[in-house]
């Protein structure tokens, strides 16, 4: 296996920008590709802001940040990724879009380049099937916000070679992340457990078992979770929850993955959570009151 030195990130949105920070911070040369100039510019600004804070908090020196930023580049030309030893895609969550990006990457990248997908709900095997290199394709699911969360769920597709998986695993560790191995299963581990759990919490509200604030307080006090499920849903946004839950339900048909009717009613009423000022709780500014 060629040692990984240069990392490509396809898609410079919320996740791609965070993943690029992780790779560059660990000393890899990092090239970010997006079709949109504005997405690249926004990510660059956020990245500079993030590293300025790292300096303020004395996690990094100015000199270190200069080196890291000097190692990062951006391009709207997919050909710019041709020198990469691994490319992590974080483009839209759409199988057709991912197939198109991976097929184009297959044309520009040398044979040794590994492909990784950050998909949350699609199958690694299905994305790999359209990549032209199913044996060198792995799932690498980072958590939001990627620049702060250490966990990466890694899954091989049905045709991923063990040596490709091992190389990606070692690379993940070299980035300072904590990989866990999971099957190419809908929702991997985290979303497979979290989405139905959150649906169940919504069902408690729906059935009048308890008020949101009582449910959250009970879970936090009894189990020591840092956030209750309904606070977390308000933070994630009910629209995002709906998308992930519908994708999970479509592939598992497990009853607990089915989205409770209350979610669609709340979305119709504009109660998406924190971002609209109202969800399971009412928000004034950033502070939470009532419930």
């Amino acid at each position, binding site marked *: 296996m060629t040692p990984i030195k240069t990392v490509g990130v396809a898609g410079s949105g919320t996740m791609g920008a965070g993943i690029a920070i992780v790779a560059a911070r660990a000393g890899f040369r990092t090239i970010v590709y997006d079709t949109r100039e504005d997405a690249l510019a926004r990510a660059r600004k956020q990245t500079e802001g993030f590293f300025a804070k790292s300096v303020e908090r004395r996690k990094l020196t100015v000199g270190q940040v200069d080196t890291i930023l000097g190692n990062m580049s951006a391009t709207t030309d997919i050909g710019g990724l041709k020198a990469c030893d691994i490319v992590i895609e974080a483009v839209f969550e759409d199988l057709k879009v991912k197939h198109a990006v991976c097929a184009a990457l297959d044309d520009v990248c040398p044979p040794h380049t590994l492909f990784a997908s950050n998909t949350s709900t699609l199958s690694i095997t299905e994305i790999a099937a359209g990549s032209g290199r199913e044996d060198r394709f792995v799932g690498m699911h980072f*958590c939001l916000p990627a620049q702060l*969360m*250490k*966990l990466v*769920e890694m899954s091989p597709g049905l045709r991923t070679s063990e040596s490709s998986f091992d190389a990606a695993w070692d690379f993940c560790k070299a980035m300072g992340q*904590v990989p*866990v*191995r*999971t*099957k190419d*299963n809908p929702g991997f*581990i*985290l979303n*497979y*457990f*979290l989405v*139905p*759990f959150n649906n*169940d*919490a919504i069902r*408690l509200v729906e*059935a*009048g*078992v*308890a*008020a949101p604030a*009582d*449910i959250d*307080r*009970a*879970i936090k*006090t*009894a*189990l*020591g*979770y*840092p*956030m209750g*499920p309904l606070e977390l849903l308000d933070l994630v946004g009910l629209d995002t929850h709906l998308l992930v839950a519908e994708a999970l339900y479509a592939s598992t048909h497990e*009853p*607990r993955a089915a989205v409770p009717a209350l979610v669609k009613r709340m979305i119709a009423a504009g109660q998406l959570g924190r971002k609209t000022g109202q969800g399971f709780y009412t928000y004034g500014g950033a502070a939470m009151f009532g419930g």
Partner: protein
Amino acid sequence: MFYQLIDTGNSRSFSARHALLESAQTDGDVVIIIGEKVGHALQTLDGSERKTAVLIELGAESLGMHTGESRGAEGSNLLGFSRFRLGTDEPTRLVEVVRQPGSPATALAAAKEIFEGAGLEMAVCGDFDGRIVDRLVRPYYNAALKRLDEGLATADDLDMTLKLGLGYPEGPIALLERTGLEHHYDMTHALFEATGDPAYAPARRARVAKLRAETKA
């Protein structure tokens, strides 16, 4: 607020010394009944209707077992409660207080004052099987045990994912094995019987633990 305590023995909520037990008086506006025989103590209690609240410790049973039920209009100064506890673990700081549709706010306020005064946290819920925590977490624990059997990931990776990804202090497999899988069986068995919901059907690993515990006994 002054309250009287009646201890009928073997309380699961208060099995050791606790501020709530120590601050009890011989009489008061509120009566708290704990232990295994709360039903009997309640029947022989005089003047309970004049109290601001009568708080009785519940096991797996509904509050309606003690009050009787009709037309969804039940509700009195009698409230149920239980301190949440997982298997062999010590009771937590959480007290789930069970209300009925017509339970008066004064009774709930008295319960809150007493429990919070004793350093506990109170969460109010309706008279539902499993109340809040067991009703919500048992299907998730079942799913974790089932997925471990199916080889989704190793126990360590399952636990690590939930700890790092969601900040849970302990992963589900470590937690259940530490507090006794046989207790998870008892709780899910009762909830499955009560609700008929397959999400509560005890996971294979819990059933094995239960059968092994019975064989040993």
